[in-house]
């Protein structure tokens, strides 16, 4: 029964997708490949499409997988299944258990979950690069152009980002968005892991220049739209 499978599979994704979209990709990949719904290539294509279209990546992926397996109704079930757990958990946390996350046992479990998610994401990314980029070179009459192009573009992209960050000190748009709110973030530094050095705790009225580079708080995290940009960029350039 495909509807039931979709429901269970994406409920599982919704319950365990810690750390936003990138934390969910390994899980979705797990579920989709284990049920045999899509091939690895098609799923990766779809991740690229989801990154380049509006909306949460997780929702986009669920909608696509559902619709490819069971039409409109399947898309509805998969989307609702991926959203429902987080909806219920937030309701529960805001209504009943306002302090649940500060509970030391919950914090201990989360403290183990988070690095584990990061490890899984890292492994999945490496596997995807190797499987899509390196393995074709060994098997077929190797076409190395995709790998060389992507690697070169990635180098250009990360290199330029580093130079922009360190060298030019351009006023980045995200910073303007945050504005003087940063000061408040610093004041609330007990609630949020924030910059470790480079701010004055007492002052509070001025933002020292180094804060910009030290910002670690979740609210003032760089909200960049880089990933879809890179994807589009690569689309354009890989049309050799």
């Amino acid at each position: 029964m495909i509807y039931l499978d979709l429901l269970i599979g994406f409920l599982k994704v919704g319950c365990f997708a810690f750390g936003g979209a990138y934390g969910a990709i390994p899980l979705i990949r797990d579920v989709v490949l284990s049920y045999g719904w899509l091939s690895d290539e098609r799923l990766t294509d779809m991740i690229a499409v989801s990154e380049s279209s509006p909306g949460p990546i997780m929702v986009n992926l669920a909608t696509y997988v559902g619709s490819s397996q069971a039409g409109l109704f399947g898309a509805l079930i998969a989307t609702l299944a991926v959203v429902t757990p987080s909806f219920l958990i937030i309701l529960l946390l805001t209504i009943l258990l306002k302090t649940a996350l500060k509970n030391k046992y919950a914090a201990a479990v989360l403290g183990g979950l988070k690095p584990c998610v990061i490890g899984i994401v890292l492994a999945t990314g490496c596997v995807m690069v190797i499987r899509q980029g390196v393995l074709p070179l060994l098997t077929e009459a190797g076409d190395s152009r995709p790998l060389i192009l992507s690697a070169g573009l990635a180098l250009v992209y990360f290199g330029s980002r580093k130079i922009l960050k360190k060298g030019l000190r351009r006023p980045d748009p995200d910073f303007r968005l945050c504005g003087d709110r940063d000061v408040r973030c610093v004041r609330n530094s007990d609630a949020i892991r924030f910059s470790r050095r480079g701010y004055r705790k007492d002052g509070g009225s001025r933002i020292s220049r180094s804060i910009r580079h030290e910002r670690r708080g979740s609210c003032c995290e760089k909200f960049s739209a880089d990933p879809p940009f890179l994807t589009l960029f690569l689309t354009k350039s890989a049309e050799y």
Partner: protein
Amino acid sequence: MLLDLFLTFAQIGLFTFGGGYAMISLIENACVERKHWITHDDMMNITVIAESTPGPIAVNCATFVGYRQKGLFGALAATLGLILPSFVIIYAVSLFLDSFLEITWIVSAFRGIRIAVGILIVDAAANMIRKMKKKPLSCVILVGSCAAMLCVNVFSLKFSSVSLMLFAGAVSLTVFLIRSASSGKGGEKP
């Protein structure tokens, strides 16, 4: 009011590319600065909560704001508003994607894009590592889970990442319990 919530979040869902974190700044702009539905502090708290709970971060924020404004129905309206645009768009895309992916030059473009997706995921992981609190236990768990996941993929074992995560949570809880038991009552914070 419900309609207002729905429309505001539909607008956010329609115009944000790039997933969760890109949405947070838009949600903040709309709900804190323009509509004054919640305060800055609320927004910061919900961002922290959203990061430690499963599910799309933007959905977590929408649910919270909706509930604050109009209770359960508000939460429903905001969440549905947020996911409806992307649902419609992706559903429309999915109808055409298969024939779209058969065009020759798009096939070759996607051969590059697939590698790029992998690179982006590695980059996301690197960012998360940079933000993580580096303690011995979490580093061990990170390396261990990464190695385990690599093994699962290389040898194509039947071992889901969910069980790996549950295992990591259990390990961390056990270490915490042992540590607090050995250092007397109360123990130290994990």
